[in-house]
């Protein structure tokens, strides 16, 4: 598994989008999968009033937790420590990887088995461990599939959603020497058979965290395949990695958030497994890891936290509903974004993780249709935040007062001047009147090719008379 992944280069969003749009199979895979997910979510929230009340509650729980984030993190650390869990703080992904490597070296680990974790993707943990001679195997079926194909997740919940059964069958045939079958159950059985032994061979199990409960020191982990439970109970060491925003104050907060998460993500009333991890194996207990570690990763989250508006980004409970409902994501797929988190939530969180200048096109990759904000289970105003990031993209920071890393990288003197002229036109009635006059009288001269617009559409031609003129004549109003 030490072969480098095909990680696309940054700053090439549009060309990747172009390629994805031309890939008919990819388009069909995403459209079909997203349609199905949208239907499932809609069916899971059949009562609109209940859904909206629950979303409001979810928003309040997350906002309340974030308002006390530093205190809650300390409370979480103190309760976890009292339970016997070792808590580590990492500001950067390098630090987080160092922590994991130190544990692995101390335990002389050769093999790591991983439950699904997007934070470990942020850390690129598989490759970092591989570089140190440690095999890191994904145990989530979707993650396992893309790891076999040296790919990155294309969706935060369903990492292999860009592949259909035929593509998975051919992959298994090629990489595992399995006979070709498109029977999804058989394919899953193949993966299960191979993975099962790996759980027993692994020295360390790594997992993500869905919610970290401060008052009890509990790590909540949801999953459907049982691989999360195996990863966190069979190996002698369990390392959980999570972003600092995943903390909630109370155990009771988890109940509505779980309901929102599973219904928004896959339309499930509840996941097959809900793991609540509080401590390592105690004397006299027959299973469970000897050591449990929690790595709390910042990786740019405090930057979002520092701004009252951008902080709402951290409400996210990683359900993926915004992707499933996004007409852009549905068409270009997750790999087009070239980052760990694709889709609308990716477009608002990635700038904090890697710097806005590294992903300048992401906030623009939205028609601001609002579908993402409408389905977000914790009411993150994603369209407003996309708009805000567009503003930061073209605003050069005041010296010493940058809102975020990479701010202002899309500033262009030309575009800035165009918008100033636009403002002048629309704030000077006489000027606008002149403009209308020429636009309507010279409509025959409207060019038939208008840049990108006419690649897919005919050129719009102004009417012979503007509404201003027609209305004035009709209403006989003084000018």
């Amino acid at each position, binding site marked *: 598994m030490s072969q480098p992944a095909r990680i696309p280069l940054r700053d090439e969003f549009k060309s990747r*989008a*172009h390629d994805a*749009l031309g890939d008919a199979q990819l388009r*069909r*895979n995403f*459209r079909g999968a997203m*349609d*199905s997910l*949208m*239907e499932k979510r*809609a069916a899971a*929230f059949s009562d609109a*009033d209940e*859904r*909206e009340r629950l979303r409001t509650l979810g928003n309040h729980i997350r906002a309340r937790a974030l308002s006390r984030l530093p205190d809650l993190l300390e409370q979480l650390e103190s309760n976890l420590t009292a339970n016997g869990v070792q808590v580590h703080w990492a500001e950067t992904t390098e630090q987080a990887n160092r922590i994991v490597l130190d544990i692995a070296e101390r335990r002389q680990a050769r093999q790591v088995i991983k439950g*699904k974790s997007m934070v470990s993707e942020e850390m690129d943990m598989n490759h970092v461990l591989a570089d140190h001679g440690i095999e890191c195997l994904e145990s*989530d079926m*979707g993650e396992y599939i893309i790891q076999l194909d040296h790919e990155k997740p294309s969706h935060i*919940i369903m*990492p*292999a*959603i860009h592949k259909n*059964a035929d593509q998975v069958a051919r992959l298994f045939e090629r990489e595992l020497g399995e006979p070709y079958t498109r029977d999804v159950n058989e394919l899953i059985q193949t993966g299960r058979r191979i993975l099962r032994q790996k759980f027993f061979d692994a020295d360390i199990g790594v997992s993500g965290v869905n919610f970290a409960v401060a008052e009890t020191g509990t790590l909540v982990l949801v*999953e*459907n395949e049982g691989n999360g439970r195996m990863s966190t109970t069979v190996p002698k060491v369990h390392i959980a990695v999570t972003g600092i925003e995943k903390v909630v104050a109370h155990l009771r907060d988890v109940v509505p958030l779980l309901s929102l998460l599973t219904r928004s993500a*896959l339309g499930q009333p509840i996941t097959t497994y809900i793991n609540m991890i509080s401590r390592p194996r105690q004397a006299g207990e027959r299973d469970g890891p000897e050591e449990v570690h929690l790595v709390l990763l910042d990786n740019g989250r405090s930057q979002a936290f520092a701004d009252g508006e951008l902080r709402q980004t951290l409400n996210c409970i990683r359900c993926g509903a915004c992707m499933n409902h996004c*007409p*852009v994501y549905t068409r270009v797929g997750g790999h087009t974004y070239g980052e760990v988190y694709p889709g609308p939530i990716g477009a608002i969180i990635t700038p904090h993780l890697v710097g806005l200048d590294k992903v300048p096109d992401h906030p*623009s990759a*939205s*028609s601001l*249709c*609002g*579908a993402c*904000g409408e389905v977000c289970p914790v009411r993150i105003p994603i369209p407003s935040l996309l*708009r805000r990031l567009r*503003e*930061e993209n*073209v605003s050069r920071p005041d010296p010493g007062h940058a809102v975020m890393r990479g701010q202002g990288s899309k500033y262009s003197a030309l575009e*800035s001047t165009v*918008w100033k002229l*636009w*403002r002048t*036109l*629309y*704030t000077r*009635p006489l000027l606008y009147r002149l403009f209308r006059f020429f636009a309507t009288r010279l409509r025959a001269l409207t060019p038939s090719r208008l*840049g*990108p*617009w006419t690649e*897919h*559409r*005919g*050129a719009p031609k*102004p*009417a012979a008379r503007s509404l*201003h003129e*027609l*209305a004035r004549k*009709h209403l006989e109003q003084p000018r």
Partner: protein
Amino acid sequence: MNAPRTFVPQATRVAEPAAAPRTYPEHKPERIYLFGTCVVDLFFPEAGMDAIRLLEREGIQVVFPQAQSCCGQPAYTSGYTDQAREVARAQLALFDQDWPVVVPSGSCAGMFRHHYQELFAGEPDTLARARAVAERTYELAEFLLHVCRVELHDQGPPTEVALHTSCSARREMHTHHHGRALLDQLSGVRRVDHDHESECCGFGGTFCVRMPDISGAMVADKTRSLRDSGAARVVSADAGCLMNINGALEKQRAPLQGQHLASFLWQRTGGQP
């Protein structure tokens, strides 16, 4: 968290958002302001005139301030907030009487109703005015339905239409309910659904030129589903979407055309085109 995947494409019906409550005045006003919008002004002026005629038929005097221009949305959604604010300020100054402001476009109405308050959050005096204007701003279909309580008498031959609602109209102004209710008053008009009805047409203001490939793919899908619906006409209350959809239909040399809801309602109810 991974579940068994299904690969079967299915037509999708997304649950409707719960409508935001709004109380409407008990009586029709004597006068209203019309804010025509910049796209209607130059590209669909007849839709603006049909809006005026529909309102006048309800006994309402329409005031059209000649100094109006654009709501500021293009700059606002592009991140040029300061430029948007100045254009918005110029509009706000024009609607100082206590008359409703009616807008024949959902997204521009949404700008007045929701985003001016964000633009002027740091200017208490202007913010108060922005709030007052927001309170009395209506999208045209909403105003006809809930304030005029219009009763439409269809005089046209039987036909089938597909209604496209702009995303901001749908999500900020809930006008898909209003457009449907108005069309349903027309006895000879049957509304036909089109596949992925609630999905964006790909216009998105400057999105269509910033991300031309994605926008092009979106409008290609939208026009395909509109053509497949069997509708004789596309009706929409948003001029931006209409420009996008009509432009694509024209490029495809499709006989189908989109028409502004105001013009469709006016012509169906005996008004002369």
